């Protein structure tokens, strides 16, 4: 009898790139930079959202994929980032670009604080408490006492701006490139973090917390910091998302956003940096595509896509591509 064993996803942690991988990434970046001059403004808007979702998903992936803490509430951090952008532009008159790091810091703190009670919870209970956060978010944003800043039920507008330094770019073109630059930097930092001793430590906590503790890892601190960093990424995405939508309102940040983010993280491939990009493409384009197939049963079609992806690619798109890549390499070597 032969036993078919699933390959263990060993190199979950990123390693240094091979030459062709580096070439691929550079080529991808070049294409990404050319894109705003080649597509319609509607498609550009969609692509900007892909870039932004990729940042948000990377944040969720660091937490859920690498550290093993499930979050059904990342839409809340996205919302906090978005509102930080809207409020600081409108009420404090700060330049939008300076608010991006502020939103990151605010969300880091919110994530860290939310992580404190979450430390006591594991697995399903953690998932439920983050779910509660996601459910509560729209109502918290409608809260009367905060209406002066949040705009309450109505929400609040976010203005557009001109491209800086007199660049001959429309605002949406500039915003795409601005988001792309921030995404590139954040992906680079995440790659460094995850291949460094921090990445090894947070993955060790996921795999075996007791052993990790015995090896000298301060589990509480690492989990909190991971929660904070994760929320920071998703919050920065939210801040950029507010600029794209030019509007924030409580009903833009329902539980559905949180669930979409989790769908994107899983379909893209958990514990994979590039998985975030594939996941972002999925949550941006598959609902539209499903809508084109049938307006009557859009979400049923979406669900069908989701199940098909999970069935065909149990380790997400990134895991699937990795297996393909390894097979090709083996064939070339043999």
């Amino acid at each position, binding site marked *: 009898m032969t036993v078919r*064993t699933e390959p*263990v*996803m*060993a*190199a*979950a*942690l990123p390693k240094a790139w091979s030459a062709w991988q580096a070439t691929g990434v550079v080529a991808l970046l070049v294409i990404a930079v050319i894109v705003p001059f080649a597509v319609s403004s509607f498609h550009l808007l969609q692509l900007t959202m892909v870039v932004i979702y990729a940042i948000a998903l990377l944040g969720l992936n660091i937490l859920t994929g690498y550290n093993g803490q499930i979050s059904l509430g990342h839409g809340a951090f996205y919302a906090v980032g978005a509102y930080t952008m809207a409020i600081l532009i409108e009420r404090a008159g700060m330049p939008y670009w300076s608010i991006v790091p502020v939103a990151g810091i605010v969300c880091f703190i919110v994530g860290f604080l939310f992580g404190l009670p979450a430390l006591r919870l594991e697995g399903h209970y953690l998932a439920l408490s983050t779910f509660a956060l996601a459910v509560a978010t729209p109502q918290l944003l409608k809260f009367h006492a905060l209406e002066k800043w949040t705009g309450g039920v109505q929400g609040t507008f976010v203005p557009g701006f001109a491209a800086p330094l007199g660049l001959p770019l429309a605002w949406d073109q500039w915003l795409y490139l601005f988001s792309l630059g921030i995404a590139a930097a954040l992906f680079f*930092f*995440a790659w*460094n*973090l995850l291949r*460094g*001793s*921090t*990445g*090894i*430590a947070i*993955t*060790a906590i996921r*795999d*075996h917390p*007791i*052993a*990790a*503790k*015995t*090896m*000298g*890892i*301060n*589990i509480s601190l690492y989990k909190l*910091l991971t929660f904070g*960093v994760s929320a920071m990424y998703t919050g920065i995405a939210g801040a950029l998302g507010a600029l794209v939508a030019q509007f924030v309102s409580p009903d833009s940040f329902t539980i559905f956003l949180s669930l979409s983010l989790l769908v994107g993280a899983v379909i893209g491939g958990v*514990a994979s940096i590039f998985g975030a990009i594939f996941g972002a493409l999925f949550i941006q384009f598959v609902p539209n595509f499903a809508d084109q197939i049938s307006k009557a049963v859009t979400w049923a079609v979406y669900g069908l896509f989701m199940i098909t992806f999970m069935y065909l690619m149990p380790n997400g798109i990134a895991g699937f591509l990795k297996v393909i890549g390894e097979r090709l390499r083996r064939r070339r070597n043999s």
Partner: protein
Amino acid sequence: MSSDSLLSIRDVSVRFAGIVALDGVSFDVARGDICGLIGPNGAGKTTLFNCLSRLYTPAAGTIAFEGAPLLGVAAHKIAQLGIGRTFQNLALFRTMTVRQNILVGAHAHTKANFVSDALRLPSVRAEEARLAGEADELIALLDLGGVADVAVDSLTFATKKRVELARALAGKPKLLLLDEPAGGLNHDEVEQLRTLIGAIRDRLKLTVLLVEHHMNLVMRVSDKVVALDFGRKIADGTPCVVQNDPDVIRAYLGTAA
């Protein structure tokens, strides 16, 4: 208490919901010794290990490591003090490679943090190079060269045990706690293990506390043996003395009532 005692355990008692797992256990482990800890299943050996790792807090008693009280120290600070361990039922990081597992073992001696790692500062690169070198040495010492970049999940049981040992050694312990290292190994592997434990002690100048059921191994490798039964210490001395102790024989073989 002898003057060169590395570890001294005094009147340690542990209770779980009314069951007494350890009952007033006291003994010393001298620096540089290999101390065997034996006893039938449920005697409290692993419970004692978990006290030393600070996973459990005893209801009574004290533990001193290098003369300083251990019971006020947080579990994640134990590795830094110089106590490393392996686990009875393997506690490896299953999705990670052998090398990565060993690197986690060195965590207590790393300075990198979230910020320095994200920016990949020169200090991070220098530390990474140092850790990689140390991991290579352990990989060579424990003959893991062929599987260094393989996920531990796909390794054989005996190899996994060696990975656990390498991971524990990566923390540069002064005291190494081995929880049934021979469990599940065949005769030849046990012989290799015996040589290895002695070699590690001599080369790395550490002290070993060894929980083991394999009597032949314990008696041949240990300088001193402590025997537990139902949470109490029943014998403490050289392997020869403990082996012939009537209480120990009774605990293992039972006695005609």
